């Protein structure tokens, strides 16, 4: 049994949808006890998301979205519209190290759970607030979803094919998850600081600022050179060939990137040194880059005789950067990920056996972390109210009747 780094850390988790839950998911997998606080009045939105959009949802506990964003957490239901509910939460917070939330506005404050209030409950508390635009500034209450943030930060304007206009970024929740990971990192740093000094703090994370944090080259090209970059498709600012080429079969593609003359020679050799490879236009990096359109056409002429994997392996063995374009289902079947145990099977009370992706956490050559199925709504009420808050049966029963625990 590997000792988990966050063993003994408790998190009172108000996060919902994507960007928030993924933060606490990292903490949970690292061993923190994450208590997700919902209620039937306000279940996490993803519980009702259609997983990919085929089957209709038979209830709150079978959403794949929820399952992949909330595993290893505990779930309890408290009605925050009632003062007593807020009292209960305060009890939980007293026993917690971290409180997390990603509401669209100052909801915590309305509940009397703003950072100053929390500090009174527990002096060294760490409060994490994730939001689309941060907790200050004119946009602080704007609702935000990943694609909105992408549009605002400039990511969308840079997503697209060379010469074409911007197209919506297809990776659902990209910025939710990159923001979430920044959040997880910030919380760990804050815990580290508390570990040394006993001091807690408030973390204010802005998704749009995370979006910009990943666009420094484009942003600095503007701040330095006043240049506004446009979509570059699969192209690179210097490498050529550098693209995605059609292969044998239905919608199969392989990517190839060549960064040096050596790699270029290796590529030509792997392609059986076609005549055109000696062409003046492709003599050196600069000319290859200048004539990449033509070059791409010719390379595709070669790749189209192979399956994506054949081409990829041929080139990798020659020392050329290359890889097939995998679809999600292909990723699921990928032998490399399989061998590294990237997918884990869980038994879910209502979904049955589910195979879900881990977090990219590996230590000392083995997968790392604690993985338990995502909680059904209120699944751990017993644990929370009996064991944790040590409440007598009858009080719990009463609170249930009063729809405080609900």
């Amino acid at each position, binding site marked *: 049994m590997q000792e988990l*780094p966050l063993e003994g850390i408790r998190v009172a988790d108000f996060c919902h949808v994507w960007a928030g839950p993924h933060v606490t998911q990292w903490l949970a997998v690292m061993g923190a006890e994450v208590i997700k606080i919902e209620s039937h009045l306000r279940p996490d939105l993803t519980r009702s998301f259609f997983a990919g959009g085929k089957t209709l949802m038979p209830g709150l506990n079978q959403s794949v979205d929820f399952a992949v964003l909330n595993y290893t957490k505990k779930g309890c239901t408290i009605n925050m519209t009632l003062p007593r509910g807020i009292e209960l939460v305060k009890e939980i917070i007293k026993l917690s190290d971290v409180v997390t939330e990603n509401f669209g506005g100052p909801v915590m404050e309305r509940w009397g759970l703003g950072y100053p209030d929390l500090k009174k409950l527990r002096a060294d508390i760490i409060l994490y607030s994730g939001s689309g635009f941060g907790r200050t500034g*004119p946009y602080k209450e704007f609702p935000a979803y990943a694609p909105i943030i992408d549009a*605002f930060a400039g990511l969308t304007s840079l997503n697209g094919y060379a010469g074409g206009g911007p197209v919506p970024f297809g990776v659902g929740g990209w910025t939710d998850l990159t*923001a979430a990971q920044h959040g997880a*990192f910030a919380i760990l740093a804050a815990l580290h600081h508390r570990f040394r000094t006993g001091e807690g*703090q408030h973390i204010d994370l802005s998704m749009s600022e995370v979006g910009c944090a990943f666009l420094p080259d484009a*942003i600095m090209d503007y701040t330095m050179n006043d240049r506004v970059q446009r979509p570059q498709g699969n192209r690179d600012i210097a490498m050529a060939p550098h693209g995605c080429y059609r292969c044998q079969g239905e919608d199969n593609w392989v990517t190839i990137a060549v960064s040096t003359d050596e790699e270029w020679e290796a590529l030509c050799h792997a392609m059986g040194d076609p005549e055109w490879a000696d062409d003046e236009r492709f003599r050196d990096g600069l000319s290859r880059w200048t004539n990449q359109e033509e070059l791409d056409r010719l390379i595709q002429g070669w790749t189209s005789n192979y399956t994506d994997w054949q081409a990829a392996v041929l080139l990798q063995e020659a020392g050329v950067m290359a890889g097939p374009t995998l679809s*999600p289902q292909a990723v699921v079947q990928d032998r490399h990920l399989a*061998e590294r145990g990237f997918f884990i099977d869980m038994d879910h009370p209502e979904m049955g056996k589910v195979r879900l992706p881990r977090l990219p956490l*590996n230590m000392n050559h083995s997968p790392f972390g604690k993985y338990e199925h995502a909680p059904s709504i209120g699944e751990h009420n017993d644990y929370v109210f009996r064991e944790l808050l040590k409440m007598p049966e009858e009080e719990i029963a009463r609170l249930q009747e009063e729809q405080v625990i609900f």
Partner: protein
Amino acid sequence: MGALSDLKVIEWGEFISGPYCGKLLADLGAEVVKVEKPGYGDRSRSYGPFPQDLPHTEKSGLYLYLNTNKLGVTLNWASVTGAEILKELVTQADILIENHSPREVEELGFDYRTLSKAHPGLVMTSITPFGQSGPYHDYKACDLVSFHVSGLAHMNPSGGVDDIQEEPPLRGKSLQADFLAGLSGAIATMSAVFARHATGQGRHVDLSQHEALASVIRRDLGAATYEGLERIRVKGAQPSTETLLGQCRDGQFFVVCNTDRFWANWVEVMGNPEWAASELFQDRAARRENWDAAKIMIEEWAKDQSLGELVRAAQARRVPCMPVNTVKESTNSEQLAARNYFAEVDREEVGRVRFPGAPYKLSQTPWQVQRPAPLLGEHNEEVLCGRLGYSRQDLAVMRAEGVI
């Protein structure tokens, strides 16, 4: 005091993934000593953007952004002396971040097994395209390849092209894959640091960029495993339904209507057009079915609207809607200004540069730029003489030999 100001980190990393991991630590106060090859230095120094497009080792925007708050030394780790020094540095550190190929690291004798013998408490974070094990672990990759191999490019774009199958799968904005790997690496590193608090034992963090990216499409992977859902690249197959990238008179906007409330409010923004009342759009299921139709109607309306007014109206009704900004517009946005997001450094050799600042604000231990990215070998003397006790004469010999 920075949150991590007691952590000593050696960053033996190139380009983006390793250095971004190091930056996250350094910006919160960790002492990060960046080890670069003599001469060329980090690859990001050659990448740009450069002021006036004039390449200069000390002026690459990407480098300057990625290496704030670090100390910089040059070291030819392939030489005996260089290897010696790197080992000494590691022995004095809590954390080693590296993103070299597993084979190279093994050959140089910097693998975790060897290093942890001298320093059992060491946390070593290796960030590589495919991780330390598995059939592809020696494969070469870059941002493009990783993005495609992990399934992300296959889902990009989610619309905006007529016949998606005619277009190749699309890597996102460049370098995203590298940044993400560095970020995941930083979290994993911190978790190893916590494990060490408890046990005193170090760990080898094996961060596979492949997995870091695949982890991002977790919902689609889940859908594939749980519902056997096949993602194919045909128009409309993408979950882009209930969202729209639309064109106004004077620019583009993006709107999300994935709840009944958002839809209702959006219809108000459009001035309650009759078509919106049709049962084609009555509930989410219906709207998802007929989203293409909805799009056509919305775009028909939007094309005469002014972007500013449209977005303001939508925000007033709390509909998630934003203009599709270029980085110019986002950089100049009132919101980022209000949070004074942008950091700025100004030094003689480099000039004045503005770049993204803290993605998060910590109330007690602020994110800070305490020193700009190091010039190549700027801290050789401070680190090699100051900490490892070499003499300046020794430095001269090492320089002449190309060790530093």
